């Protein structure tokens, strides 16, 4: 390194040449949860420019959809957001079922809702644990994982998977529920509710936590709308939008879905949205379990041909995923594979707004903002 710099001497501090430092956050960095890369331009510790560089984890999911049949697509769709696998499967099967004009058995509908809500809690707990770690509090993540374990156990019992459930099938669910499973779900939900209260005690009122998050990375509702931000992040900015209420799928129209919103739009609001949403989802899961228990016995799935050919047409199915709106635009030409399956993932849109929030912030704020965007890199890069 023999870079020579000439600095004007004697011409006063105003003309002293200073250089901005370029700092790469990632692709490998503890705060990026994978391989997101941000190129920061720093003036001291203040950020003057941010450029997110995405695509390190691009797996060509959309293109692969086009050469897989509808059972195989589920495996792929499952994986772009590995923290909300069940919710991802759901979007695909809803779209396919709509084109096929299949009516799913009632029990399957309620079971899907129950599992989707449990999956939402699992996802949120992950971020409730990882966000404090980014701010330097190392303990909450272990509490969060303890609660995740309780939920994962019931999920595993029903589906056989702990992360990638693969439980949805076109026309219903793969298997019927194990005997006595609903009681264990209720017990797990009660357990998680108590445990979440502990996490809340641990971090919510902490003054340092407030100092680090309040008023940091304020996202205005209009900006959120312009960027297509959705999910808890948008709701924390006051964008009162939740597909479960506003365009119900499954049987959400029969439930009263309380939508957690905040108006501040800062990191704290985003965190609180997530925290309160856990409680809401646990309540919904409990209601679903009660409804399921009251339903008469019946099939959990309709029989579909092994060689499933979806009639020609196109449809768009969107679901309220844990991280935001997840959409599948399915175009079929009557073949065994879709002609096109466009994936609209929540994190991809949500992360676009991050540079706007980071400009002018400090490096430490940047971490706080990045963490509060609650993204999964696979969901960004697809």
């Amino acid at each position, binding site marked *: *390194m023999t870079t020579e710099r000439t600095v004007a001497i004697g011409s006063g501090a105003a003309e002293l040449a200073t250089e901005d*430092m*370029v700092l790469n956050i990632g692709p490998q960095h*503890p*705060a990026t949860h994978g391989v997101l890369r941000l190129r920061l331009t720093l003036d001291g*510790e*203040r*950020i003057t*420019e*941010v*450029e997110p560089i995405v695509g390190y984890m691009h797996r060509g999911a959309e293109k692969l959809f086009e050469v897989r049949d509808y059972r195989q697509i589920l495996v792929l769709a499952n994986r772009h957001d590995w923290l909300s696998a069940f919710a991802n499967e759901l979007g695909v099967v809803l779209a396919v*079922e*709509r*084109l096929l*004009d299949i*009516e*799913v*058995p009632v029990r399957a*509908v309620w079971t899907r809702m129950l599992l989707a809500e449990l999956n939402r809690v699992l996802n949120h707990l992950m971020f409730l644990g990882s966000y404090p*770690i980014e*701010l*330097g*509090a*190392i*303990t909450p993540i*272990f*509490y969060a994982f303890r609660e995740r374990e309780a939920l994962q156990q019931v999920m595993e019992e029903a589906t056989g998977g702990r992360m990638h459930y693969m439980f949805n099938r076109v026309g219903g669910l793969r298997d019927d529920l194990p005997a006595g499973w609903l009681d264990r779900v209720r017990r797990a939900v009660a357990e998680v509710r108590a445990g979440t209260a502990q996490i809340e005690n641990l*971090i919510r009122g*902490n003054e*340092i*936590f407030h*100092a*680090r998050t309040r008023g940091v990375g304020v996202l205005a509702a*209009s900006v959120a*709308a*312009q960027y297509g931000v959705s999910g808890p992040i948008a709701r924390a900015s*006051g964008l*009162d*939008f939740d597909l479960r*209420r506003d365009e*119900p*799928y*499954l*049987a959400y*129209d*029969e439930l*009263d879905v309380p*939508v957690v919103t905040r108006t501040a739009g800062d990191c704290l609001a985003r965190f609180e949205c997530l925290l309160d949403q856990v409680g809401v989802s646990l309540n919904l899961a409990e209601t679903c379990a009660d409804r399921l228990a009251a*339903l*008469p016995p019946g099939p959990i799935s309709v029989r579909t041909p092994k060689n499933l050919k979806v009639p020609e*047409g*196109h*449809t768009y199915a969107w679901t309220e995923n844990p991280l935001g709106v997840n959409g599948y635009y399915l175009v079929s030409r009557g073949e065994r594979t879709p002609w096109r399956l466009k994936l609209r993932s929540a994190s991809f849109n949500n992360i676009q707004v991050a540079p706007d929030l980071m*400009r*002018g912030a*400090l*490096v*430490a*704020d940047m*971490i706080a903002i990045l963490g509060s965007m609650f993204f999964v890199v696979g969901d960004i890069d697809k």
Partner: protein
Amino acid sequence: MKTTAELIADDPLWLSIIKVVAIFAFGVVMTLFMIWLERRVVGRMQHRPGPNRVGPFGLLQSLADGLKLAFKEDIRPVVADKWVYFLAPIISAIPAFLAFSVIPFGPDVTMFGHHTALQLVDLPVGVLVILACSSLGVYGIVLSGWASGSPYPLLGSLRSAAQVISYEIAMGLSIVGVILRSHSLSTSDIVNAQEGGWYFWLLPVSFVVYAISMVGETNRAPFDLPEAESELVGGFHTEYSSLKFALFFLAEYVNMVVVSALATTLFLGGWRAPWPLSAIDGGVLNTGWWPILWFVGKTFFFLFVFVWLRGTLPRLRYDQFMRLGWKVLVPVSLVWIVLIAASNALWNTPGVTTGQRLIFFGVGIVVLLVFALLLPDKRVADDEEFVPVTGSGYPLPPLDLSVPKSPPRRRLPAAPEPAEREMEPAAVAAADKETGDGSL
């Protein structure tokens, strides 16, 4: 009766060497033990066992880790400044051990037939030596960051420099209170002066300021900004590996022990036994070798607090941390010093009655209150550093979109019989229309 300094001055060379070795061993063993303790305690706080495989209760885990570090490849970045990079961890570690030399571990004892004190040296400026050592240690951190030739360590070392400058001042000011009371800078004299009462309750403000600034001084959570693993990866030691990294680790833990030992010396009566024990048999527990036990016990109390903080608190932001130092700790210390000096002066003036003293203090408090009320309210300052959103050459979405109105919440009448109700989810209902449109 000789003073401690005179006692130590009579030590033969071999006795001094024994003490030096003992102090060094104490530092290293405490480091190994502290790493184990920290991992176990934090593990307990986090519902997990912590290291429990190597040796009884996993006690030898840190030793195994240390050996492993020694056998690792020693990497030096190409752009690193060779000598500074090499020297930085040494500069960081040596002063940490050096500070131990003036800490009094106990009173007079007889060691191998020689009457001496459990202290290596007793300088008339002992406390200043410790302050100087901890400031010197920071050079190691700053130089390591600079010499690594990498942005993360550079940011870490810059933070460290600012942090230590500000917290050194707060720490120094908190010690001034102790000195005003004990009339000495020598550590053994300070311990002796606490015979009548420990300073943590005689000088509570100094104690609190010291306790906060000692965490800042040692770069520990919640003030671990120079390392900040979620921000700066490893901070100043990002580029270090092998034994050099181990030296930084050693320095950090030895520093923790040093500031804890100093806190014990200055505020918790040093090696003196705690109250009910000190009354036993006319203070027999304050003589001989017993005091080492009390001293180590009190030091461990502080060390436990370090671990406790780490398991509990998030990290402060750099500017918030600076604000705490300069705008809270330093002014509070200054006012406190004035108070101590004033009360010292009043109490030492003959012919002043207690009533007069109280009146004097009352007037002082009223003046302070009036002053506080006259201070203008905090004004919301414009952020001069604010950088406007400029756009980075990427297509921006149209900026005149308005927020869609929130849809009204749909409330459905309770379904009469959930089981009987005909299921027709909206999704399926919508499908007819969609498929109809779709046949292009």
